[in-house]
């Protein structure tokens, strides 16, 4: 990844011309392995926003964490100590965020999360210097529980991988779901075969299935589930139905309802401009991860316009104001620096040759998280 980083820095140096960079942003994200699609979209969304801002004094240092906590920790140390970045962002996975974010914010460095929102960082472990621009992990799952109630499901089988975000997922779903649980399983992170779980679903007598399996795990599950003939209705968060995954799942995903804080058809100016410009710049439709990267960069840019990151109190206040045009329409931070936003239900459809999502309704309005009360900054 040295070469990638060199090219990235070179590209930005070229953009910057002779001007020396005044703000250095460290991005640690997943660019190789099975989870690479997520990190690439966050990075591309982030870079697009910086390009559109026309600011030539921002240098972005991008490093690949390979989805490994120990590598993320090493990279964070390097960025803080030798690259001397001014603020950090980029981590996709909650287990990596838990390894990196607390030590970064303890050094009074600002960290803007474009994806991972583990509950441990939203409650007692919150920090003045930590802002989550995506969601607290539970949010989309709480929306899914609420949606399942509305759809009349009374006996759900739920499953998620055994890692912090997986636990947050099932906790979130159970917080809002009022029906019974026919079964609850934690699978291995990175698992590729779900035959054993699908057999348990078949035997459980459930009337619906709720699953949180981001990235390649979701592709495997959806294909195998469709082939198993179990046929119970599926509900999931957007993570198994993002723009890049759907093409690999194909027909197996059509019609499945999923919950998201963003969708490409959300009707606001910022989003329309984002979808069009992302497609033009990269030749593919943006995913929700791309929208999160884009929003994170725009939040950062809005704060940089008001204050320097070195002026901690002023920069914090500028971030808290969330004075930027979000692709989600309205966007605000709660007291623990996590979003207060609407969550939508989407349905997978096929538009021509492309599988994508269309919004079918709003499930939760101005939804915050249930950990804010424990946060003492």
């Amino acid at each position: 990844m040295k070469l990638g980083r060199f090219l990235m820095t070179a590209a930005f140096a070229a953009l910057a011309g002779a001007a020396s960079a005044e703000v250095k942003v460290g991005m640690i994200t997943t660019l190789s392995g099975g989870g690479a699609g997520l990190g690439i979209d966050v990075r591309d969304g982030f870079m697009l926003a910086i390009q559109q801002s026309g600011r030539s004094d921002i240098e972005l240092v991008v490093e690949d964490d390979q989805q490994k906590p120990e590598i993320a920790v090493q990279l964070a140390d390097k960025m803080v100590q030798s690259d001397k970045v001014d603020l950090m962002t980029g981590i996709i996975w909650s287990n990596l965020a838990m390894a990196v974010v607390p030590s970064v914010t303890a050094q009074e460095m600002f960290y803007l999360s474009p994806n991972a929102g583990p509950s441990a960082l939203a409650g007692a472990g919150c920090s003045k210097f930590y802002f989550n621009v995506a969601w607290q992990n539970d949010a989309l799952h709480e929306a899914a529980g609420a949606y399942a109630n509305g759809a009349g499901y009374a006996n759900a089988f739920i499953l998620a991988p055994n890692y912090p975000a997986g636990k947050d997922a099932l906790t979130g779903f159970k917080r809002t779901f009022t029906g019974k649980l026919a079964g609850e399983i934690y699978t291995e992170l990175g698992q590729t075969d779900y035959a054993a779980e699908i057999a348990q679903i078949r035997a459980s007598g459930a009337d619906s299935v709720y699953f949180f399996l981001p990235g390649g795990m979701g592709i495997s599950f959806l294909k195998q589930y469709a082939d198993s003939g179990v046929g119970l209705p599926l509900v999931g968060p957007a993570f198994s139905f993002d723009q890049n995954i759907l093409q690999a799942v194909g027909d197996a995903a059509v019609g499945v309802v999923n919950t998201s804080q963003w969708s490409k058809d959300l009707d606001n100016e910022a989003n329309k401009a984002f979808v069009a410009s992302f497609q033009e710049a990269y030749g593919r439709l943006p995913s929700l991860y791309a929208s999160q990267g884009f929003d994170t960069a725009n939040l950062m840019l809005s704060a940089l316009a008001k204050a320097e990151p070195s002026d901690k109190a002023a920069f914090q206040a500028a971030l808290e104001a969330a004075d930027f045009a979000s692709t989600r329409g309205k966007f605000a931070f709660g007291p623990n620096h996590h979003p207060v936003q609407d969550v939508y239900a989407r349905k997978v459809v096929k538009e021509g040759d492309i599988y994508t999502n269309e919004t079918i309704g709003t499930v939760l309005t101005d939804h915050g998280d249930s950990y804010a009360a424990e946060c003492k900054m």
Partner: protein
Amino acid sequence: MMSFVLLAEQVLNGLQFGVMLFLMAAGLTLIFGVMGLINLAHGSLYMLGAFAAAAVAAATGSFLLALLAALAAAAVAGVVVEVAIIRRLYDRDHLDQVLATFALILIFSEGTRWAFGSFPLYLDIPSTLSGPVRLPGGIDYPLYRLVLIGAGLLIALGLDLMITRTRIGIRIRAGENDREMTAALGIDISRLYTLIFALGAALAGLAGALVGAIQSVQVGMGEPVLILAFVVIVIGGIGSIRGAFLGALLVGLTDTLGGVFLPEALKLVTDPASAKAVGASLASMAIYILMGAILIWRPTGLFGGRA
């Protein structure tokens, strides 16, 4: 209480997982046994097979052509890698081999990313094999997985016949026992090695394509399977095809059944929440515990000859 249907379905799942592991482990154990080479890049050949199949299936729409492409692509890659790089490693110690073949993993992964992009590819099972079938006893089981079991068993039988009954099998066994003497008897040992490497690669590529149809075809998909395949060949005894077969089935069944029944069994002695957590952790350790137990009992594996 576990019903018979659920148990039978899980046994089939374990078998299916086992025979696919065997396709990976067969090549690995031959390469390790005959040439004394630790080939970490075997998982990359699995990935290559899946990508070749996905690309050909997308272009032609034919699953059969996709499988042939997977076999061919992996075999050709195997030959190229053997002749260009691996050949130089036979006389080096295992650490050098690990280093070089690890480098190959990175080259294959980034090369695939460069050629196909970072997002997973689409590869689906053919429509004639999709959907479940009803087995005796009222078990609904996906037809494709049954086909995988059948195909895996056939290949295992074919390999066993090849090793025990054919001239090439005799040469492989001879090369395994005494490489200098085999060469002294006028057998072109370097061609034999290339052939074995290509055969192992082709089997890995085929496994990748077959499994890729029900999983996610993505960069890095081979590495988790590779670790399990190493466990399999250590359990089975290095160099033994029969050992690899038995080891693969043991690992497949232990992994599948352990994940389902350990949490259930623990519920009998503790509360459901901690049974679930402890059971899940124990299940992920189960195959390694199995490996440890077998190695204590038979230090060279089930079919391992040499100490």
